[in-house]
């Protein structure tokens, strides 16, 4: 087995035992990138020079026998929505094509403190707006399981590079499902922690009441290790919450005896692919056979989550994206008549179509005469959606659902119809409204060979329950061990 195929915790053991060096590991990752990146196209920027320096520094730590953090020397990819000091950060937008952040996001500072190695910046839907990564201004990322299909989005690059073994793990961001959905479609583990768990300082803002950073990993243990490294109150982000941070590896318990798992009937309706439904039912049966009690529940406002989301997220985005005006950073139009004209031309030339669509939708929903009918109505619907979950968590510890209603679809299949694309998020947006933690874990392949993800949700700040259920499921199944055969797919 090549080094790039291993998990972070397996590699940590090898690094610590001095069987391998971090430089060897980093070189192995870049060799793998040489092999498959031209097909997958998961990265917008590669940072090999920085990576080798960081790997070298980690090796010095290992040689000195220092106290070695679990992510020291581990190659990690970063979604291009997270500011990296001195390394171009584009948000996959033309408007930030030349933006080089003068500071690091707090999550980057935390990764540096661990001694992690940055492989590069990953592709995404422009400003994290999309469900297929096709809205990138730069390139299309291909799903490693079938290069003709999308990897999901918006963190499609971060999911694809972990699935393709061109990074050991990665960071993404999740506003309405942008970590969980691509994780499901690429057959990897992806977690959106509770809103407020992780500082968003340096995360380029999309919808501030929903955005959260989280990890993509090859297994649940790695997910706990990365989350351990990222959590905590940060004075640079007033929405980060001062809560005790458990050591999540202590929740990696192979036992769910007595845990109550709720299955909401609203997630198993029309629009759910039958093969996906079968895989999820198998997974739920497995959890029951492992000792959990499975309870039918109802989340009656589920069907309103998309409509609510497509008011709240664009409204917040329209305000957040007002800052791109061609004055302080980023793209500016070549010629303009006056200041207002410069703003308009810069923004119209710099933003892609989906971003403009959402700015328009959000500006409309907040404009005079419409704010109560749209934005306030959506905020009230959000209360109802959240109340559904509050009531459910009185009865159950964890909720199990599909992560995505379908497996990965073909590139180009849904780009013509924005509303069809929005409906991809039907299983993930409800939990986003309620700020809940959620994890997607691989639960098998459909007949065409594409992966399916099981979504587990818990009450706010109860990531521990998610880790326990996800870990138990993983330890008693082998779905997470399946790997795409990228060369074979290409030969077809």
């Amino acid at each position, binding site marked *: 087995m090549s080094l790039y195929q291993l998990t972070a915790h397996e590699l940590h053991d090898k690094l610590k035992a001095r069987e391998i060096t971090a430089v060897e590991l980093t070189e192995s990752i870049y060799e793998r990138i040489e092999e498959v990146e031209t097909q997958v196209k998961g990265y917008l920027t590669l940072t090999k020079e920085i990576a080798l320096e960081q790997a070298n520094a980690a090796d010095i730590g290992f040689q000195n026998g220092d106290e070695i953090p679990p992510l020291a020397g581990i190659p990690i990819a970063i979604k291009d929505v997270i500011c990296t000091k001195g390394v171009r950060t584009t948000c996959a937008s033309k408007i930030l094509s030349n933006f080089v952040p003068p500071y690091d996001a707090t999550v980057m500072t935390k990764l540096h403190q661990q001694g992690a190695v940055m492989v590069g910046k990953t592709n995404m839907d422009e400003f994290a707006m999309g469900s297929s990564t096709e809205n990138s201004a730069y390139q299309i990322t291909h799903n490693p399981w079938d290069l003709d299909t999308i990897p999901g989005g918006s963190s499609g690059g971060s999911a694809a590079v972990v699935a393709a073994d061109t990074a050991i793990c990665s960071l993404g961001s999740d506003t309405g499902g942008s970590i969980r959905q691509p994780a499901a479609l690429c057959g990897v583990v992806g977690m959106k922690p509770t809103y407020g768990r992780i500082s968003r300082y340096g995360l380029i803002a999309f919808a501030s009441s929903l955005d959260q950073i989280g990890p993509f990993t090859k297994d649940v243990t790695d997910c706990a290790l990365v989350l351990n490294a990222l959590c905590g109150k940060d004075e640079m982000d007033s929405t980060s919450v001062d809560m005790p941070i458990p050591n999540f590896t202590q929740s990696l318990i192979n036992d769910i005896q007595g845990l109550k798992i709720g299955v909401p009937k609203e997630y198993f309706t029309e629009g759910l692919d039958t093969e996906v439904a079968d895989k999820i039912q198998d997974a739920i049966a497995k959890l029951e056979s492992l000792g959990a009690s499975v309870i039918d529940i109802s989340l009656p406002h589920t069907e309103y989550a998309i409509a609510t989301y497509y008011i709240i997220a664009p409204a917040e985005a329209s305000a957040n994206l007002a800052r791109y005006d061609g004055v302080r950073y980023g793209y500016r139009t070549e010629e303009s008549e006056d200041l207002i004209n410069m703003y308009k031309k810069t923004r*119209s030339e710099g933003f892609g179509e989906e971003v403009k669509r959402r700015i328009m939708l959000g500006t409309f929903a907040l404009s005079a005469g419409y704010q109560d009918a749209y934005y306030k109505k959506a905020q009230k619907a959000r209360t109802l959606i959240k109340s559904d979950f509050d009531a459910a968590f009185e009865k159950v510890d964890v909720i199990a659902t599909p992560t995505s209603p379908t497996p990965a679809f073909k590139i180009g299949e849904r780009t013509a119809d924005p509303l069809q694309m929005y409906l991809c998020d039907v299983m993930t947006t409800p939990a986003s409204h309620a700020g809940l933690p959620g994890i997607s874990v691989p639960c098998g392949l459909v007949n065409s060979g594409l992966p399916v993800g099981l979504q587990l949700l818990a009450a706010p700040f109860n990531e521990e329950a998610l880790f326990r259920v996800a870990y138990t499921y993983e330890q008693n199944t082998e779905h997470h061990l399946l790997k795409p055969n990228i060369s074979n797919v290409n030969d077809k």
Partner: protein
Amino acid sequence: MATITTEGVSHVANLARLEFNKEETKDFTEQLARILDYIGKLNELETDDVQPTSHIHPLQNITKPDVVKTSLPRDAVLANAPEEEEGYFGVPRVIDTD
């Protein structure tokens, strides 16, 4: 809930500091109308007695001590500016001197 016209789209575009040609305006009008039609689903909900949720935390008015700290050096901040003049951001003329 109301639907949206091409005039409405042009008005909103101006508010958002965007500009579209005729064809784009037509496309956006059709797309936004369709999305707003779908969003109209929310009217099925009785929400008179429901409080709005702006975010999920019971947090309000986070403050911190008003202490002066070092911020980024001016050069570092201006390094990304499309136009810089004598240590300031440069913009097209705002005030007419005629």
